[in-house]
């Protein structure tokens, strides 16, 4: 079987992994690097639970062939936390109750993070919904997820720091 040596950056750290050319980015992250926050759902690019940032853009990790990420930068849900505490977005998910079973959460967070980085003005609920069309949730009914993203988008950074500390304590 053909082996492939792959150099990539994940969450700011350089990795060199040996894999197969027919592995997907999802296989590499989940099975080889042990980053199990990236969830496998449909493996057809429809559910969004394996969403990661590839060079800053959200993609379905199940639709990316491993050799195609040579030399590129990947951010998974594990890379969203800042200095060991939840990001403002993650904290807002906790505060708003934007997760139930949690399976879709990592993908939701990645899509939301990509969206918040992209938007220039305060987004509307319709824009947030549009940004999440590639992420399916079967528990929450989406309302609280949209609330959480709007909360981050409209709150000042100062307020969100408080929220982040609150959430970090809640997890201890």
């Amino acid at each position, binding site marked *: 079987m053909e082996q*492939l040596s792959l150099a990539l950056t994940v969450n700011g750290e350089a990795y060199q992994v040996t894999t197969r*050319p*027919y592995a997907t980015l999802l296989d590499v992250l989940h099975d080889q690097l042990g980053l199990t926050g990236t969830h496998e759902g449909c493996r057809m690019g429809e559910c969004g639970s394996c969403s990661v940032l590839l060079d800053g853009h*959200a993609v379905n990790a*199940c639709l*990316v062939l491993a050799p195609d990420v040579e030399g590129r930068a990947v951010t998974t849900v594990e890379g969203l936390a800042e200095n060991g505490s939840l990001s403002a977005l993650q904290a807002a998910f906790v505060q708003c109750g934007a997760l139930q079973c949690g399976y879709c959460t990592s993908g939701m967070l990645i899509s939301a993070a990509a969206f918040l980085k992209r938007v220039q003005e305060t987004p509307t609920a319709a824009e947030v919904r549009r940004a999440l*069309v590639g*992420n399916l949730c079967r528990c929450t009914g989406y309302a609280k997820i949209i609330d959480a993203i709007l909360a981050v988008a409209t709150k000042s950074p100062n307020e969100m720091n408080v929220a982040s500390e609150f959430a970090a304590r809640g997890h201890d």
Partner: protein
Amino acid sequence: MLAPFAYFAPSSLAEASALLLANGPRARVLAGGTSLLVALERSQASADAVINLKRIPSLRDITYDSHAGLQIGALATLSELLRSAPIQKHYPVLIETMGFMATPQVQNLATIGGNLCQAAPAADLIVTLLALDATVRLYSSNGERSLSLDSFLPTWGGTILQPGEILTRIDIPLPRGKAHYDRFMIRSAADVPLANLAGVLEIENDLITHTRLVVGANGARPTRMLRAERALIGQRGDAACIEHAAELVVPDVYPPDDWRASREYRRALIATLTRRMLTRLVP
């Protein structure tokens, strides 16, 4: 993991074309991968070799010239096209069309060339590109050729790509007059349309001088509504004229009859979309 295949990432078109020929019909081209990986994952397709085109320089360039129009490298992603300033300014109909397509995650991967080579019967972008009289540029070891997108897509479906031939570029002249895209579906997100339609219409001295009406989700490939187009030329585009064009479209379409919707329902939808489209295009 997927079923094993050999993987190649050539750095030139010549090398890619040679690899395609050497590996036979079970060699697959990788562009965005959003269709290929799903097909391999579900075992709807198998591959002995996957040839990744993304390491070939300049295949994703987007250039605009006020005379030549737009030239899009086959590997430009939908996101790159959506972000392109010349497309936003001079080809808003492309932005309108791509706004309906796929999820943000897929838009970041899927390429325009992959979309055209996939040639899905209900595809969005092909409908609009046909209405804009786009041409495609193909590379092979025998040289390059340009042909209209219309002749790239045979009536029986698929494409006319020959073994070892690679789609490299899509050229789109400046739209004549106004252009719009419309579609109808039951769900709002990430589904294929039940009916879709692109229209182009130019008016000079109150009379219609140029028009294109292209209906998708209609048999093996999107189709120009030639009888309706002819009936519109030289007219003012009043309500009676629009109604007449919509009536001419109905017998000229043969949409699928399946679990999504019946043929008669789709025919009625196409007539409605035609009426709406012409009403938007006529000032």
